[in-house]
């Protein structure tokens, strides 16, 4: 078991009611769990609690059998990563992509070997000429593939995919979904796939949890 959530709840400051409450699920190694729900059902809130961005109001999270405390540290911090819906704001607009993509090496405290990095990025359809540019100079599909590559450079066990294809055109959507499947096959990573697209969820996920539904 990579991750287990028990009775997760979140109430934002100033709100009279919980945005999500009593959400429980588990994700096995190499598995994709779909989190389906309408807009405002709290899917992204759950995703951000799992990724350690939001502190749950109630409930417990276990990563590889160990209970997590907020903020996440050590193995859990590196082991759970997130891919957001909006690729155009997933990179610092003031930095060249080359500087952004090298950051995982810094956080893992390992030296960045540029040739190996370029070779790794080629698997995601990103080449050296892309890296000297600023985020605004790449398309949404290219940026999302680069964002996925950056996530994978952290060597995570679980990736929260927060509607990663909803802002992309049909061709880019297909490319990203195909890439996600390939990466999972190669690396054995687990996904929490957040979406409101039932068809995509049923095609991509091994199990589905519906939020806001019974």
């Amino acid at each position, binding site marked *: 078991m990579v991750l287990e959530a028990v009775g997760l709840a979140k109430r934002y400051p100033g709100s009279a009611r919980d945005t999500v409450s009593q959400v429980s699920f588990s994700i096995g190694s190499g598995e994709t769990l779909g989190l389906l729900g309408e807009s405002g059902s709290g899917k992204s809130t759950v995703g*951000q609690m799992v*990724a*350690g*961005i939001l502190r749950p109001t109630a409930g417990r999270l276990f990563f590889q059998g160990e209970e997590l405390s907020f903020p996440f540290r050590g193995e859990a*911090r*590196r082991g*759970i*990563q*997130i891919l*957001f*819906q*909006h690729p155009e*704001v*997933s*990179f*610092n*607009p*003031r*930095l060249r992509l080359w500087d*952004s993509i090298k*950051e*995982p090496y810094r*956080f893992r405290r390992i030296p960045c070997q540029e040739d190996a990095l370029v070779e790794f990025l080629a698997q995601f359809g990103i080449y050296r000429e892309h890296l000297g540019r600023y985020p605004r100079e790449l398309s949404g599909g290219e940026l999302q593939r680069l*964002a996925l590559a*950056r996530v994978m450079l*952290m060597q995570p066990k679980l990736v929260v995919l927060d509607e990663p294809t909803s802002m992309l055109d049909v061709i880019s959507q297909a490319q990203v979904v195909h890439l996600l499947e390939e990466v999972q096959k190669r690396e054995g990573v687990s996904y929490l796939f957040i979406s409101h697209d039932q068809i995509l969820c049923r095609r991509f996920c091994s199990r589905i949890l519906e939020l806001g539904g019974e």
Partner: protein
Amino acid sequence: MLGKQPIAFKVGLFILLIILLVGVFAPILAPCDPYQMGTPYLRPSAQHLLGTNDLGQDIFSELLYGTRISLIIGLVSALAVTVAGVCIGMLSGYLGGWWDRALMEVTAVAQAIPSLPVTIVLAAFLSPSLWNIIIAICITAWSGTARIIRSRVLQLKELPFVKIEQTMGASHGYIMARHILPNLFDIVFVRGVLAVGNAMLTEASLSFLGLGVIGQKSWGGILHYAFFRSGIINGYWWWYLPPILCISLSVLGFLLLSYGGQQQLGRRN
């Protein structure tokens, strides 16, 4: 590169470059020693372009030397005010929680205090040196910048690229320095440039009230003596008008630079 800048930016920059050059080369440009006394109350002539004051000192030379004090106080105060405003606003907005509450309480107090009277009281109590004048100007002037920076940081920290840094394990200091600060450049530039103009205006006000730097020529100081030694009553326009024009022109220069910069950065963003 300058060709693409808005006209306001170019005009502002031109005015300020002239003022800066005048300040730097004042000893070369000034026809007389501004402290040397001679015949008082002379009208403008070829020998004294703006006449002389009550002590017979050349007003044109005083004006050139006065540029230095006004610029130094303006630039140093603006730097201090901007650095303080950015640090407080960024810590408050990014860290949130009790940091935010405590820092915003202090900011609210600083904003609630009427700045000019406090500056005057401080300048009156502290000995009138260059650094004390700068401290007096800075004591409340940072609060507006801090509030604006905090608002922008609150927006920035909700953006995915900041959240991704958090999930990758970046420290707060790293995120603020590497990812938040560069995205505040437009606000920092605009507020910083405006702060120079404001500080110069405050310095002129203090000097006019006789609370400026003692023993140094400044535009506000020239105005002070023109007012208190009957220059205005007697209609000696060459004594009181030039410092007023210089102060207005430099404030206009900073306003234009700030406005033009805002336009350009807005366009780029």
